[in-house]
């Protein structure tokens, strides 16, 4: 398997309430292409911060991160934006769909940003919404969809530009356990069929159980790792 993400000595500090907070305190990790991985930890352990840095949404205070061997610290903000657009898809706890736009337009958004022509955009978005099982809900707005459906739209949007990495920040946090399980199962299917790398931040052990590898984060450090089939 080829290495897709490598993080070396990641430190992230920020000021909160006038005091410096160390959200990440020297994280090293390597993720192979096609992995289905969970990052677990209590709230405040730095999971989301790590995910944002892995997704090129934020820059680390120290250390570096390489995606397919490209050092992100050497890229400009504009190049990072392009990378997010092409290589990375985000799925959030609160879905983060744009409320005034229907499912199709939400899925089309990353394609529009990439400059994909209108018809192709529409075709691709319809394809993706069918793939996530929402073929009959395409023109519904987020407030007309259930939580599970909204998260499926978000997954379709994450897949829009066919990125190789999908980052999920508590994707089941706002769903009941049954719907949450369905969403994770969908992700697993996509992982198996397309070989996309999924990194799922969660504090739900049931979700983590469905992944192949779990990284445990505590106080900004990786404190443990568990592979499926291993005790």
């Amino acid at each position, binding site marked *: 398997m080829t290495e897709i993400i490598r993080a070396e000595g990641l430190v992230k500090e920020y000021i909160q309430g006038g005091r410096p907070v160390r959200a990440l305190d020297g994280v090293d990790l390597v993720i192979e292409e096609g992995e289905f991985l969970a990052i677990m930890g209590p709230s405040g352990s730095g999971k989301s911060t790590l995910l944002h840095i892995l997704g090129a949404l934020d820059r680390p205070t120290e250390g570096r991160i390489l995606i397919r061997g490209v050092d992100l610290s050497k890229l400009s903000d*504009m190049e990072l934006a392009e990378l997010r657009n092409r290589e990375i898809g985000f799925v959030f706890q609160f879905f983060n769909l744009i409320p005034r736009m229907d499912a199709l337009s939400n899925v089309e958004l990353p394609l529009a940003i990439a400059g994909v022509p209108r018809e192709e955009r529409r075709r691709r978005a319809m394809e993706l919404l069918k793939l996530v099982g929402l073929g009959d809900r395409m023109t519904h707005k987020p407030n007309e969809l259930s939580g599970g459906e909204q998260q499926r739209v978000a997954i379709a949007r994450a897949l829009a530009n066919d990125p190789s990495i999908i980052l999920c920040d508590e994707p089941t946090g706002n769903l009941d356990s049954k719907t949450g399980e369905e969403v994770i199962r969908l992700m697993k299917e996509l992982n198996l069929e397309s070989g996309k790398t999924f990194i799922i931040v969660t504090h739900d052990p049931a979700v983590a159980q469905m992944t192949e590898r779990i990284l445990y984060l505590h106080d900004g450090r990786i404190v443990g790792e568990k592979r499926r089939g291993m005790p």
Partner: protein
Amino acid sequence: MKTLDTLLYALDGVRERKFRFALNIIGILIGGAAITSLLAITQGVNRDISEQMELLGPTTIAITPGGFGYGGKGFLTMRDLERVKRIPHVALATPIISMSATVTIGGRTGVVPIVGVVPEEYLQVIRNIEVAEGRFIRRGDMAAAVLGANIAQPPGEEESIADVGSRIIVTIKTEEGIKRATYRVAGILKETGGAFIISPDDVIYISLRAAQQLFDMGNKIHRIAVEADSIENVDYVVDAIEDELGESVLVISAGFVRETVGRITTSLQVLLGGVAAISLIVAGIGIVNTMTISVMERTREIGILKAVGAKNRDVLLIFLSEAFITGFLGGVLGVLSGIFLGQVISSIAQLTYNIVLSPYITPTICVTVILFSSITGVLSGLYPAWRAANLNPVEALRYE
């Protein structure tokens, strides 16, 4: 992001905030309408005056003894006239006496300018005079008068108050006391629509000799109208007259008048346009305000856009487009309202002050107003859009 997609996205955002958007548009619209109507009215005034001046003819030159107005304190003399006649390229020079007097016509009394002219020469200078009834005065007429259209039938009157053959009495005050003279109406003129300096519609013509006698002018005259032999020689003749008669006289050619009127209306335009532009600035501040609020409300949306790969530039352009759409639409609607407003203002002016204003909308005015409104929109959007573009994506996504 492609330009069209940016615009469509911005439109979509605008549609979500219709009420605020409408308020912003109204702000721009008011400014645009004010500028449009005021520019149109000053343009109209300019055009009307220019048209009137065309009646004077491009080769006509007027000499007055310094200053405009009837019966000014200064005088010219018949000797001045002879000197002007000797200047090369002067085809014609004719004396004019023009003084106000109290006139009684058909039982009505009012103050009217009495103009004494040498008829056959005068008619060569003021070419748009046409007789409606009777005849124009003749050189030797001592008791004949010709009435301008507005004298024979004052505006607002249903019927004319004088006919050919009617008697008019002219009363003037002199040092010796009240002096009265009686004239017979020999003719009535058609309406000309006016001319610069003297409008034939609003005066009574008598012969120069009769005027000299009436006003006891002796050798003195009020004005000399000159025709140069060609347009090319007008400037030469103007200079020569100034040399001959000295600095105390005012020599006016059609070109000079046009220039002066142009200067006055241009300053008027700048002044009124400037006042109206202030309202656009106020509207712009309104846009800055609402867009800043809008950026705050949409912080999360901006975070989402950035997460899915929008560049700072994309976000900047989305918000600038919104501002542009506001300015542009406001400008277009402002022009349309301004055309209407100009009509309203001219109707009010006509009804209340009896001033005829004919607003003149040129394509330049429309384009200028729309351009100016659009620029106002974009400038107002700069700061909020810059703020939006530079939001930290992680913080934006966390924003509740």
